């Protein structure tokens, strides 16, 4: 692929990739250096698009000392998955060391290749999204109001909420100093992302952030214009961007603009400010730029995938450049929406996309037909496995290198893999994997099952299994926010505990009171949070 040579290429180097290199926080730019005992925390969220066969994420085999749910419970609760017998201390929930599940694939979806990180992972079962929601990109990060039932939310006066990555991105506690980039939002397939933001304007409109699709765009914005250490001259655009900023500032004072108009200009000014900062502030000496990637012409709509090989390559590059940005402390927040993936279930690699009637692989149709069609079921498994290995595992591999004092970047980070919805648009028991201990804030190395196995709640029997209530997913949001260093005062809104749409505990689109404990919704998940 041709690589454009810019006029200012002389300012740039063609340094090798930093992948696998030790990286010391002592070499980070001034102001971002981690204090002893106060590690820099980073948050990565990855979403698998579309429907899932939820049971495929759980172990369905019996290591020594284990039995299946079929044996332990039988009846409605027999689903062929492994039952956990050890009680999570202080709770009625169960857990088991992930180390007990080595030697073969953990489950149909989670391959054995993740075993090196089992000690740093948490596999969480029994986390329920708000009932009645369906198809919402931001749900795994706390915004249900964009879901397919959005009309119901609007009717009930339930507003959009920033996703938690954006709560972190605009938190002074999370970012004591202004970062180069508050967050980096990535996707495959379409620019619709899992990140919704109000740009830190409380009460302002919440908008979906368009995602980077093209690795070269991402590289250019994160690394392309940064001045190399020791470069003698100022970037020639810096003074121009500063002058443009003043144009916006002057316009903002015009009497014939409304408050909303001014907010629009202020938002634009914030972006200009970011660009100017990037032009002004060089990378640290220890921050090695990734090589400039080729331009793939990744476009939208998604049909422009030129080849499976290219798609694999640019997905890898998106991860690699994002990791480089984390390790250079250009940003501490990454989200990645895998709307397009690859399935090899039929023996040939096929790119698959949600609701794409005119490509070979339609993730959405696979999900709908997976119960009855074994090949569609296999495609769903393969797609999620691809996201596990090509995205989630790739993040782990590159973050699990020493940052300082025997701690790796991963140890101080939290990488969260979740999904959009389960089978038939149900959103109970959403598969969740966490990796990294968030600097010791989480206990890791366990498979934790928050399902209420003895609950008498309706437990409808569906073609693919029984629906057993678990614990509101909101508590995972709280866990993440607190693990990243925020306190409730930093994120709670309108006097309600916790985060997300937790204000409706009665009626439709609610957490049924006979299945969930309302008073706990603002608390972190039991048993894994170390405070």
């Amino acid at each position, binding site marked *: 692929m041709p690589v454009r040579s810019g006029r200012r290429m002389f300012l740039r180097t063609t340094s090798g990739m930093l992948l696998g290199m030790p990286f010391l926080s002592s070499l980070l730019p001034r102001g971002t250096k981690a204090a002893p005992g106060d590690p820099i925390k980073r948050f990565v969220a990855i979403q698998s698009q579309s429907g899932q066969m939820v049971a495929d994420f759980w172990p369905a085999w019996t290591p020594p000392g284990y039995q299946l749910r079929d044996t332990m419970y039988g009846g409605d609760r027999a689903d062929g998955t492994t039952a956990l017998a050890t009680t999570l201390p202080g709770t009625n929930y169960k857990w088991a060391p992930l180390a007990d599940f080595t030697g073969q694939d953990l489950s149909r979806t989670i391959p054995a290749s993740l075993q090196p990180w089992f000690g740093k992972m948490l596999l969480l079962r029994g986390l329920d999204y708000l009932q009645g929601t369906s198809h919402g990109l931001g749900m795994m990060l706390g915004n249900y109001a964009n879901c397919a039932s959005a009309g119901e939310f609007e009717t009930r006066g339930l507003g959009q909420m920033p996703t938690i990555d954006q709560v972190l991105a605009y938190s002074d506690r999370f970012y004591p100093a202004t970062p180069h980039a508050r967050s980096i939002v990535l996707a495959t397939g379409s620019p619709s992302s899992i990140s919704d933001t109000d740009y830190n304007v409380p009460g302002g409109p919440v908008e979906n952030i368009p995602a980077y699709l093209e690795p070269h765009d991402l590289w250019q914005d994160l690394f392309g214009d940064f001045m190399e250490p020791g470069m003698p001259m100022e970037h020639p655009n810096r003074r121009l961007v500063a002058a443009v900023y003043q144009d916006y500032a002057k316009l903002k004072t015009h009497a014939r603009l409304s408050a909303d108009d001014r907010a629009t200009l202020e938002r634009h000014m914030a972006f200009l400010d970011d660009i100017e900062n990037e032009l002004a502030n060089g990378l640290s000496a220890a921050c090695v730029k990734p090589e400039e990637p080729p331009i793939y012409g990744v476009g939208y709509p998604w049909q422009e995938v030129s080849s499976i090989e290219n798609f694999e390559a640019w997905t890898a590059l998106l991860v690699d450049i994002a990791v480089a940005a984390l390790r250079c402390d250009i940003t501490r927040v990454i989200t990645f929406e895998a709307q397009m993936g690859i399935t090899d279930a039929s023996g040939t690699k096929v790119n698959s996309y949600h609701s794409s009637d*005119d490509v070979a692989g339609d993730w959405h149709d696979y999900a709908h037909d997976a119960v009855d069609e074994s090949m569609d079921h296999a495609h769903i498994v393969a797609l999620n496995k691809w996201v596990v290995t090509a995205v989630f595992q790739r993040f782990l591999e590159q973050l699990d290198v020493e940052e300082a004092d025997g701690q790796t970047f991963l140890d101080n980070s939290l990488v969260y893999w979740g999904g959009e919805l389960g089978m038939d648009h149900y959103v109970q028991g959403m598969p969740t994997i966490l990796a990294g201990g968030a600097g010791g804030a989480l206990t890791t190395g366990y498979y934790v099952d928050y399902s209420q196995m003895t609950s008498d709640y309706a437990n409808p029997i569906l073609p693919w299994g029984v629906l057993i209530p678990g614990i509101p997913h909101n508590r995972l949001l709280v866990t993440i926010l607190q693990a990243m260093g925020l306190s409730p005062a930093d994120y709670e809104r309108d006097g309600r505990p916790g985060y997300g749409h937790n204000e409706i505990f009665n009626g439709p689109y609610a957490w049924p009171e006979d299945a969930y404990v309302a008073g706990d919704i603002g608390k972190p998940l039991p048993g894994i949070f170390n405070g």
Partner: protein
Amino acid sequence: MPSQHRPSGAHPTALGLALLCGTAGCYHGTNAHDDGAGDGTGGTEASGGSDGGTADDTGVGACADGVSIAPLRRLSEAQYRNTLAELFAPAGIDVASDAATELDRIPVDDGDGSFGILDTRVSDLHARAYYRLADRMADVVAYDPENLTAVGGSCAGPSMPDAACIDAFLDDFGLRAYRRPLTSDERSSLHDIATTSPDGTEAWRSLVFMLLMSPQFLYHVELEGEGDDAQYELDGYALASRLSFHFWQSMPDADLFAAAADGSILTEDGYLAQLDRVFEDPRTQATIDRFYDEWLQLGWLTTFPTTPAFQTFAMGTTIGEADADHLVAAQDEIHALQRHFTFEQDGSLADLLMTDLSLTASPHLAQLYGVAPWDGAGEPPTMPAGQRAGLLTRVAFLLTGNEESHPVHRGAALRERVLCEELPQPDPTQLPPGALDQPPVDGEKTTRQRYEEKTADAVCNGCHHAINPIGFVLEGYDALGRHRTEETIIDSVSGEILATLPLDTAATPAITGDDTVVADGIALSQQVVDSGKAEPCFAQQYFRATFGRSEADEDTCLIETVTTELTDNASIRSALRSIALAATFRTRRVM
């Protein structure tokens, strides 16, 4: 704002739900024409004809009390692309080739299944795209002597430009970039930027960069005009931009700038003259093409599948041949029809919904219709008798993307897009197990029978009773839009033909609120026309597409005016044009 963004390429009604189940009384429509449209504030007499005339009989200033807030907004994606191209075109600079990579960075406007212009987000990626394009185009100008002379005049070169040279540049390129003359303060700032540059090349690069990054270029800044700070009449330059961006999706041309400069655009005759000229320009036709594309969600299918089932289904067609152009031709056909009944004839929406003319030049598409391609000369051919009427029976509207027709998609599309009825998303937890799965192909059942069984549950039928009948009537067209009287059942995996079954297309769509049974696309289209719902829906959709926002209470009069042009005057042309005659078009209300 967009919520769950439907990707281009996905079937417009396929988002999330293959089937739609819910409760009874599930949809709400816009007011039909006979539900109170035309209350006298903006009726026929006030909204006038399409061929110029006096202020009174053309309705200039109609709906004077209906001025809604016009927020500051960025240029839409299309407007930005078009404006950038036209800004540099007089200098012979082709932005599309000189900045191809940078143009790819412009975020796609996502109207969430509606009009892209409704997406008003300003994100980090927008700011960075503007930055990259400004940087690139500044380079293209400053580092190429020929380009520099073309943009900056003969005085422009590698040496520092003098004040007169900069002024001349700002009077020409600067005016067109800001879409108005620069103020003395703005001139002074730009002079400072240029004269503090290290050399002439950098001075020119800086000037171009600054103009392209300016809010005056990137936003619709309309701050000048007579009135108070809360509401004022637009000045000539802002009005010129309103006209050009509404009808062309681009910046004003030289004539509009001239009319703004001499003030003639602010006179009623001068304004109407410009409106007529702008409306007749081919760029308006392209804008209206785009309106139909987005309104009816055309063009979402870009390739046919290659599955065995589709290959069986497409046997006898030219799909797959090297020059086959079915998909593009299908979209072009809708464009040709709308142009025919708007710009070539003064036709009505009913004409567009009922015409049996075939205007396609594509032999491939014509084959699907069973007509000869039309070369544009003489009388166009007509469709085979009794088979088709207007937009709703054309391939572009009927395509499903595979070998199976989809009565639910078709029914929902017609209800939502053509009649503006709202269909709710069901709560999946209230549905029977597997309710959202598509009914599997069955060699003993037609598509209609499969969907009837699938949606027979009382919960599902609450909505499907309103959706399915429309789709069942349209079962007279297969998944490619071919007319049919029997259905070939094809195994979805092997492609084997399982059966050929007789079709029953008789159903009760109840579009007009009665139980009249219709059995073909022509009768269905006639019912749509008779319902009086299509015109207010068209007016509402056109309003959104042209103003880039949902309608407010103050816009009711304007939408009724457009509706009246479509009904009483029976003129699409007048309706499209009338939107520029309303007070809200020439006025900015701030708050």
